[in-house]
């Protein structure tokens, strides 16, 4: 993502953008605090919160014991009592130990209490494969979370979103989960020096095109843009949609693109069966079936726990050639 330097921009990484977002939130609102395993002394397992402990102290950069359920639930309670906690769960894999708190408490309290209590909590976690850390550290389960009514699910793919989504999330009256793809933390690029909050309820067209819609989010966005560039070499102009919010989905943006291109490929690092891609595909069928000129196609992870060896890991998750091939197949140009 290297662009020529523009005036008013700074060179940064996705990691630093997230850190800046957290710093800003801590400065802006004394009710905000960050809590999670190794967020303080260690500096965050992905170095996202490095330096924050020195700046804000152990009360607001709060190291927790290995108790995903306990401290996620504590975040829920603190949010209900007027604080604005940011709970960091190292990876989505470990978030499963807190799934009960997220699903059965955070997502349900507003409904079960007849709107008396809400849970304005933000939970951040890493997701995704590509670092050869084997199955228990590599899964992409954000699509599962997108299944749950009562929460919002965000997937920042760009520096702007890494920087901007957090504050908007903290302003929400309901729980918001933010999934940061592990492969993006080192991504560098230029970001407006005054970058701040962004809206979180709209998908974005990251590349305009007329021939086919490539619908994706998070870590797969960059592979999909690469695929679109390759397709352009074959005179295929692909439109790339970055969903940004996985729950709620921006149906209007998806349908507008499909209405224009009449073809769609969904790229999703989750497993194919029961995936977010299945949901999106079905929505297109429900809402835009008559606009379609070809069957919808999907590029998802293979139905296997993510393997450790590089070649198998690469083969398991969506890659540029598979996206290109799927797009061409949808256009009848295999």
């Amino acid at each position: 993502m290297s662009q020529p330097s523009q005036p008013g921009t700074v060179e940064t990484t996705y990691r630093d953008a997230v850190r800046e977002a957290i710093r800003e939130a801590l400065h802006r609102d004394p009710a905000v605090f960050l809590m999670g395993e190794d967020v303080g002394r260690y500096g965050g397992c992905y170095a996202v919160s490095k330096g924050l402990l020195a700046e804000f102290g152990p009360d607001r950069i709060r190291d927790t014991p290995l108790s995903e359920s306990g401290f996620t639930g504590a975040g829920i309670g603190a949010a209900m009592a007027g604080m604005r906690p940011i709970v960091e769960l190292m990876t989505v894999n470990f978030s499963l130990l807190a799934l009960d708190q997220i699903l059965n408490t955070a997502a349900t309290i507003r409904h079960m209490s007849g709107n008396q209590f809400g849970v304005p909590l933000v939970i951040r976690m890493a997701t995704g494969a590509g670092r050869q850390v084997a199955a228990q550290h590599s899964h992409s389960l954000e699509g599962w979370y997108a299944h749950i009514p009562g929460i919002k699910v965000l997937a920042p793919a760009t520096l702007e979103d890494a920087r901007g989504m957090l504050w908007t999330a903290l302003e929400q009256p309901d729980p918001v989960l933010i999934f940061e793809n592990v492969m993006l933390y080192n991504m560098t690029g230029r970001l407006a020096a005054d970058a701040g909050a962004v809206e979180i309820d709209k998908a974005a067209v990251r590349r305009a095109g007329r021939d086919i819609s490539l619908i994706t989010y998070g870590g797969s966005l960059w592979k999909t843009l690469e695929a679109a560039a390759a397709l352009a070499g074959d005179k295929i102009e692909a439109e790339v949609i970055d969903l940004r919010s996985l729950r709620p989905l921006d149906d209007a943006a998806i349908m507008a693109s499909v209405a224009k291109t009449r073809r769609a490929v969904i790229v999703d690092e989750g497993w194919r069966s029961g995936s977010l891609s299945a949901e999106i595909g079905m929505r297109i069928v429900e809402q835009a079936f008559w606009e379609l000129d070809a069957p919808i196609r999907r590029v998802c992870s293979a139905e296997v726990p993510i393997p450790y060896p590089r070649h198998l890991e690469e083969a398991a998750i969506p890659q540029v050639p598979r996206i290109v091939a799927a797009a061409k197949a949808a256009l009848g140009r295999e």
Partner: protein
Amino acid sequence: MTIAADKPRLSREHMLELLRQMIRIRRFEDKCAELYTQEKIRGFLHLYDGEEAVAVGVIPVLESRDRIVATYREHGQALVRGVPMTAALAEMFGKQEGCSHGRGGSMHLFDRAKNFYGGNAIVGGGLPLAVGLALADHMRGAGIVTACFFGDGAVAEGEFHESLNLAALWGLPVLFVCENNLYAMGTALALSESETDLQRKAACYRIAAEAVDGMDVVAVEAAARRAVHQVRETGKPYFLECRTYRLRAHSMFDAQLYRDKAEVETWRQKDPILRLTTWLESNHLIHADELARIEAGVAAEIADAVAFAEAASWEPIGQLTRFTYAEPVATANR
């Protein structure tokens, strides 16, 4: 009756009020059981019969700014806390005038005005929530106490241990009230815990802990006074194990195959209402007409509540998806 502790509170008036509150819960729940057989109340219904001394001993000791977290067996806690009986019963009917707008039912009584945080049907699920409420108060130096009620079954859940550890580690003002009624559904405590002396577990986390005869409302109140005072003074957690017994089945579906009638009969002799009444009578502190007056007052309140719940309305199906997320506020400042 333990009457040594905290003498000033042992006025006759006060004793009669304790008795009245216990009778109020007992008669209310007797009525609920009846309404359940009439299918006015559906779903799960967990009665508190035999355990009333715990809620009545603990809750009036709390201030209105203090917070309460309860389980699905929470009618007693809700009533003593001041959730109107009308709203509680309407909730069990599923009517929108219920204290949770009818969305929660018997297991999810909530009342924001009373700082009553439910009503949680996940065994152990309320403990992290209580820790978080207390964390918020701790961070703001509020001097508020959060009382968390849970059963002996919850002690086997990981969240119990995570929560006690967090509360002790961070010095949080939580009063853990364990209602040890010796059974988790049909599983006796001795079949589920290697250490059945539960307050010892709290002591392992360096939490001040004591066990009290939970069938003796005066003893519970005296212990609760010590405990609440200590939590408020020190800001640290306290563990109060109330040794009690549920005289009825776990829920309306329970045939009670796991315990014999003789055991229940033995405990019936310790019924907290019988016990306090007998003590008051033998000390000539209550007259038959006073008891009759209490019963009549309670009966009238229950009759009102039934009429209220019957007359209350069903939420229109058109509102089905309300309260999944906060509704947009009219003031469009974002």
